[in-house]
């Protein structure tokens, strides 16, 4: 077991392995998303209350879920990197942040587009989820800004790891405090859970989208980590060897 982890954590091994895994994430993810889009946008019946506007959940829900998931991955790998000084873990954390920020942005944008016909406004401060997503985006920005402000990679890794962990402790607190705050303003919002159960024709495409988004996220993450590893190891022998041999192949 430990041997396997050590081998996995070695950059050249990971670099090669990730290249083999990425298609296995990417292709099923793509297929699932195509099915989800087709099923969600064409096959699923319109919602009896929201009409066709509900269909945005097929992008909104997976994005919102991934914005949290990416933050968890970032914080966990940052913690692993900090405790066991695993360089690869830091690379994963660094690679996860921008993707997570994009999914957060996507969740905010789709939520706001959905809010326009539903609430009659692009932005509703009374909705706790939208507000805590916004705070989430700021957390990502803070993480990336701190990373960008420190020139030395190893130092940036460790400093941003501390920030990610502090943020991870705070994320649930922020979420619940925002929920408490907005519950004082108005009653349950439309997005409240426990509404009428979803019809299977609506639900399956959504599940497919969530799984598909997650797989694509995995593929993107692995791809970014590969790039990150290549950049970080740019002075090592194996990278030089790799670059030279690929240059020879092209000729």
């Amino acid at each position, binding site marked *: 077991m430990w041997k396997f982890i050590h081998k996995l954590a070695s950059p050249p091994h990971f670099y090669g392995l990730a290249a083999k895994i990425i298609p296995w994430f990417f292709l099923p993810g793509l297929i699932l998303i195509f099915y989800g889009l087709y099923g969600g946008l064409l096959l699923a019946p319109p919602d009896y209350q929201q009409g066709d506007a509900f269909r945005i959940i097929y992008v909104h829900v997976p994005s919102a879920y991934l914005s949290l998931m990416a933050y968890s991955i970032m914080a966990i790998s940052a913690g692993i990197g900090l405790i066991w000084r695993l360089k690869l873990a830091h690379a994963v954390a660094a690679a996860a942040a921008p993707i997570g920020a994009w999914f957060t942005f996507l969740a905010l944008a789709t939520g706001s587009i959905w809010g326009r016909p539903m609430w009659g406004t692009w932005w509703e401060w009374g909705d706790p989820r939208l507000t805590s997503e916004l705070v989430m985006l*700021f957390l990502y920005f803070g993480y990336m800004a701190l990373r960008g402000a420190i020139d030395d990679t190893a130092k940036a890794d460790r400093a941003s790891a501390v920030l990610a962990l502090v943020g991870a402790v705070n994320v649930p607190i922020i979420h619940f405090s925002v929920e408490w705050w907005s519950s004082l303003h108005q009653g349950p919002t439309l997005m409240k859970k426990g509404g009428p159960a979803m019809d299977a024709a609506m639900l399956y495409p959504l599940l497919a989208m969530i799984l598909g988004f997650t797989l694509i996220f995995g593929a993107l993450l692995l791809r970014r980590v590969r790039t990150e590893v290549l950049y970080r190891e740019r002075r090592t022998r194996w990278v030089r060897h790799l670059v030279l041999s690929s240059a020879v192949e092209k000729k």
Partner: protein
Amino acid sequence: MTDNQPEMPGLGRGMMAVAKRDLFLAWKRPGDVLNPLFFFAMVATLFPLAVGPSAEQLEFSGPGVLWVAALLAMLLSLNSLFVSDFEDGSLEQMLVSPVPLAALSLGKTIAHWLTSGLPLVIVAPILGMTFRMPASVMGVLMLTLLLGTISLSLLGSIGAALTVGLHRGTALLSLLILPLAMPLLIFGARTVSLAAAGDVVAGGLYFLAAYAVLIVSLAPFAIAAALRISNE
């Protein structure tokens, strides 16, 4: 080990020594203490000027404005928390000290809170009065600010420790700390509003107290880790 090994100072003594030193430094440079206080008053003055002097509006926005102003004033005072120690090398002395760095960091934040948090708490009722806050709310206002500034001192110190020695530290610190401080703002301001409306305030106060306890126990270690990384 020989006999003439100096006795290791205790946790509390090391912490208090740092706190005392910082308090003394603050006494010698009163501007550092007064500036955030003026800033607090200035921000609180800006709002009535911007939104208009109607009593209703002031009453309604008072708790929020005071809390935002206090948050920003704390942030302002946090910028310089570790900078002078970093520049004159005393931070490195703390790093190599036999007393755990977490205890020394706690000492620094105690001094920071006494010089920047406590004055805000004391001045807040005066500003609250200008916002037509009834006298009965003052106690809650001061209590929320008391608990909130303790948490902000510690939370902000983590950010200050992470950004010490960076060129763009000032703007960065706000980006790092403000999102994390949002729960404090929400509970602080809302609790004061509830008090003004004659509602039950225990829940909000309990939350702020719980947050303060959590962060007093965890933040010193995060600050110490951050300081070590910043000094690598």
